[in-house]
């Protein structure tokens, strides 16, 4: 009790400094906690399953040592064959990879649904999605049955009973009906699976359930205890030969088992629908959170040391009157504890206030119910204990090691040791600020580069309407709809296609130069288009021409991108012109009539992939879910309404679903922009708090040097020379922090940039700018105090001394 009253008295004595100290530390702890909550959320993906032994089986195709195809999916046949022939697989489940929306109808309620899949009853054995209605063992057994989520049930049945109800699912080419047999809770945010409708796998015709030529399912397996994933991978490689389709005969066919908990943070592969996290970003964010905490603690330590130096006489007297080493340390720890506790409480307030904004901004419901989870409080307690020891132990031991007489003579305030410690702390803070500022500039540069590379002046003029669900006479109606749209004066082009810029084309089919050996086959993305697609999006042509009706029927003509030309082994794009290709599902050859330059079909995180444009009528089973409408100006609400009205005229029962291409392209880089914002915010915070620390350290350092300034003035020092003397150390410390921070930043930011297939070269000017910025901020922070001391009348200073 006696200690506490002394602690509180000592805090009151310098109220404004204590407030500053608590405020600075709370800001850092708050920001670090927010980042840690986000990191924790990212690391928690799929952790709610009992998935210790659950893996996703992913296909890897090699030509020699080169990985040519890297897919998140396997073929339908993998799971049963592996389970049958490879010992150690306890259970498996397949989940189909769907890529097109379906129109789902119940009575007068109709929505376009994209979150659906076909899956097997074992789904509920491998995953832990609680079933709210219906028995666990009865689900997904019968054909045409399904399990839906709570929110889907609400969407179609409001408060009515969903069990037993039948919903109609329609695509442009089919119609099916499914009976609801169960309801599950909505799949949580931190799940890599996000489905509203689980359709029974047995609905798929038996002949297609175990096929090998379509890599269209995600395969999950649970291994028997003690079984290693590498054993399964090796075992599959050994049996893969007998299941290879013609297309894969000359490939080395392997699988890789990705642990369920790691799926979210591993790099994106083809056929992967969900938004993925980045393990590099998580690593950088973790470093950032620790850096923010360290900056805050260092700041508090700096302030505490400075105050202890100022209060040296008090501690000297305490020691002279018999306070033991333990008592001095205890008082120091209690003071630090009080400081850290106050800062933590304030920081929790910051988190409570800022979390909703952070969630809205990130469009992620992360850290829901964090305040109720024991893990969060363990994290907060660790921050408190770590902070108390960090800020309390060193200053206390510093005082216990020095003789009372020395403390009272003020030796501590001017001691080289105390000064050195302060300098080390300032360098530490500046180093972190430097890394964060330069990081912000790099991230901003990369995001800007990606947006510039993918944006086109015309994308603001393109409206993309989703292809309607199945109706009678669809192709005729679609042609008429297109023609009518094109008659509207402000509409320039209308095109139906399998993808639009930003969307993965997928649909890998094997192709090879016609007449070449089967070993020459390559997997190439099949991009279904009509005559208007290339004129509408006008990618740069390398050579040749685009499809044109003036040449008559062009169904057996194709256009390649440069990457496809390379993979097919043509020595140059010009050489590919006029050559013929053999595609796996067609008898007759296809003629190459043009080559487009490589362009970014997806985000710049993805490398160029081989693409083959073909007229959609040639392979009708490849879906064409997008209708692009290009206008002569921006798409406004009147124009949108007119297109919708036209759509309803031709497809009265269909659901009008659309998006603006601009918004879509923009959304590709949302997570990158978020990352940039996190960086910028953390940098601002770090700089702000470092400045706070610098300001206080300067305050004390000026106090310690005021006599020196007086003497120098008496001896004839001018203002400029005094300014240089008082700030040259700051310049030196900033340079030192820059030199130390440079390699840290280079390693971190290069690592981050490497995660993009296309990225900027780490710009060196960034480090110059970061240094100058840091320098200016540091000088502005200390300028007023330095100037005040310089302007003091010399005799006033020396008289006070």
């Amino acid at each position, binding site marked *: 009790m006696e200690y506490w009253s002394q602690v509180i008295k000592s805090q009151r004595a310098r109220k404004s400094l204590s407030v500053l100290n608590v405020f600075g530390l709370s800001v850092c702890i708050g920001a670090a906690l927010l980042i840690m909550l986000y990191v924790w959320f990212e690391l928690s993906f799929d952790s709610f399953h009992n998935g210790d032994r659950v893996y996703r089986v992913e296909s890897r195709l090699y030509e020699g040592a080169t990985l040519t195809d890297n897919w998140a999916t396997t073929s339908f046949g993998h799971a049963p064959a592996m389970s049958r022939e490879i010992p150690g697989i306890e259970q498996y489940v397949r989940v189909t990879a769907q890529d097109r929306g379906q129109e789902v109808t119940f009575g007068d309620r109709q929505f376009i649904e994209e979150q659906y899949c076909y899956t097997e009853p074992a789904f509920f054995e491998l995953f832990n999605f609680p079933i709210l209605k219906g028995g666990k063992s009865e689900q997904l057994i019968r054909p045409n049955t399904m399990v839906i989520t709570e929110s889907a049930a609400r969407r179609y049945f409001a408060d009515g009973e969903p069990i037993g109800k039948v919903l109609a699912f329609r695509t442009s080419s089919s119609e099916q009906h499914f009976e609801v047999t169960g309801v599950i809770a909505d799949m949580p945010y931190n799940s890599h699976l996000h489905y509203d409708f689980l359709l029974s796998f047995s609905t798929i015709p038996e002949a297609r359930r175990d096929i090998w030529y379509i890599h269209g399912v995600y395969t999950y397996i649970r291994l028997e205890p003690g079984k290693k994933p590498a054993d399964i991978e090796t075992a599959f490689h050994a049996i893969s030969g007998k299941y290879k389709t013609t297309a894969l005969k000359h490939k080395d066919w392997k699988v890789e088992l990705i642990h369920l908990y790691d799926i979210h943070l591993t790099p994106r592969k083809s056929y992967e629908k969900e938004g993925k996290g980045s393990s590099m970003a998580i690593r950088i964010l973790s470093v950032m959170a620790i850096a923010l905490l360290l900056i805050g603690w260092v700041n508090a330590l700096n302030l505490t040391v400075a105050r202890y130096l100022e209060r040296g006489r008090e501690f000297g007297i305490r020691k002279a009157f018999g306070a033991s080493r333990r008592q001095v340390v205890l008082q120091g720890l209690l003071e630090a504890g009080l400081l850290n506790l106050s800062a933590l409480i304030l920081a929790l307030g910051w988190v409570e206030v800022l979390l909703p904004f952070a969630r809205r901004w990130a469009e992620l419901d992360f850290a829901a119910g964090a305040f109720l989870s024991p893990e969060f409080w363990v994290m907060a307690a660790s921050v408190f204990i770590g902070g108390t020891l960090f800020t309390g132990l060193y200053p206390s031991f510093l005082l216990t090691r020095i003789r009372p007489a020395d403390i009272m003579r003020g030796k501590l305030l*001017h001691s080289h040791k105390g000064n050195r410690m302060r300098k080390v702390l300032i360098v530490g803070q500046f180093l972190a600020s430097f890394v964060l500022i330069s990081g912000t500039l790099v991230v901003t540069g990369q995001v800007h580069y990606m947006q510039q590379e993918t944006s086109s002046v015309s994308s603001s003029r393109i409206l993309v309407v989703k292809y309607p669900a199945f109706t009678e006479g669809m192709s005729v109606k679609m042609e008429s709809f297109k023609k009518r749209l094109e008659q509207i004066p402000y509409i320039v082009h209308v095109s139906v296609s399998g993808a639009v810029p930003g969307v993965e084309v997928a649909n890998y089919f094997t192709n090879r130069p016609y007449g070449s050996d089967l070993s020459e086959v390559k997997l190439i993305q099949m991009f279904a288009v009509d005559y208007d697609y290339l004129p509408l999006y006008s990618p740069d042509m390398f050579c040749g021409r685009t499809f044109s009706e003036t040449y008559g029927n062009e169904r057996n003509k194709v256009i390649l991108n440069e990457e496809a030309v390379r993979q097919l082994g043509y020595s140059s794009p010009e050489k590919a012109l006029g050559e013929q290709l053999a595609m796996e599902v067609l008898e007759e050859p296809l003629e190459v009539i043009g080559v487009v330059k490589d362009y970014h079909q997806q985000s710049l995180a993805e490398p160029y992939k081989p693409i083959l444009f073909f007229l959609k009528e040639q392979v009708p089973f490849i879906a064409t879910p997008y209708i692009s409408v290009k206008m002569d100006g921006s798409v406004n609400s009147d124009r949108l309404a007119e297109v919708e009205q036209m759509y309803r005229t031709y497809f009265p029962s269909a659901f009008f679903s659309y998006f603006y291409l601009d918004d879509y392209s923009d959304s590709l880089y949302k997570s990158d922009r978020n990352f940039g914002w996190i960086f910028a915010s953390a940098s601002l915070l770090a700089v702000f708090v470092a400045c706070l620390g610098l300001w206080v350290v300067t305050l004390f350092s000026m106090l310690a040097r005021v*006599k*020196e300034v*007086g*003497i*120098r*003035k*008496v*001896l*004839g*020092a*001018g*203002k400029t*020379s005094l300014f240089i003397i008082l700030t040259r150390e700051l310049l030196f410390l900033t340079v030192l922090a820059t030199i130390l921070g440079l390699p840290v930043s280079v390693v971190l930011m290069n690592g981050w940039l490497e995660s993009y297939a296309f990225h900027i070269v780490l710009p060196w000017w960034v480090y110059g700018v970061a240094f100058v910025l840091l320098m200016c901020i540091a000088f502005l922070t200390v300028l007023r105090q330095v100037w005040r001391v310089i302007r003091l*009348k*010399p*005799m006033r200073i*020396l*008289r006070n*001394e």
Partner: protein
Amino acid sequence: MIKTENLSMVFTTEEVQTKALNEVSIEIKQGEFVAIMGPSVCGKSTLLNILGTLDSPTSGKYFFNGKEVDKMGENQLTVFRKGNIGFVFQSFNLIDELTVFENVELPLIYLGGRKSERKRKVMEVLDRMNIAHRAGHFPQQLSGGQQQRVAIARAVVTDCPLILADEPTGNLDSTNGAEVMELLSELNKQGTTIVMVTHSERDAGFAHRIIHLLDGRIVS
């Protein structure tokens, strides 16, 4: 060399006004050794500070070699002090972070000049003060007497014509005090004008004349 006319200095706080100097007029000739004496708070140090241009008078005039100093701005005063006035303080006022050599070199740096020339001058004056063997030490490693000798060395290193000493023996024992006074006396004999504030009759005995101050006025 020094002439003041009706110098006054008023310190104003929120509640009271204190007149530290009241129309002081003095004249000091080149080569003189003048002691200023008086009880505490009589204005001795204030007068010395004004003579050293470390403080500005509230009213009155101050001429140095015929030039009116009280009208000068801060920058002009800084230039004026360099090479004209040396200071010796009771509490030495050496910079703890600098060595003896660096402390003495400081006024030469502000005056400008080549490094080799500075080194020669510093070593010469340290020799004269019999402290050259301590050139590499820090002030806190020296005795009080040694520190004051360093302070005097610093005051004379620029060959300035005037030294202002504010109770130079105040912090020294009698032996060291006597040594310092001998040094100042020796400098005076070599032509340096010295104005010294002191409480000590014995120290004042070294001066050619004594100015007595009481309540900010000259009484004799």
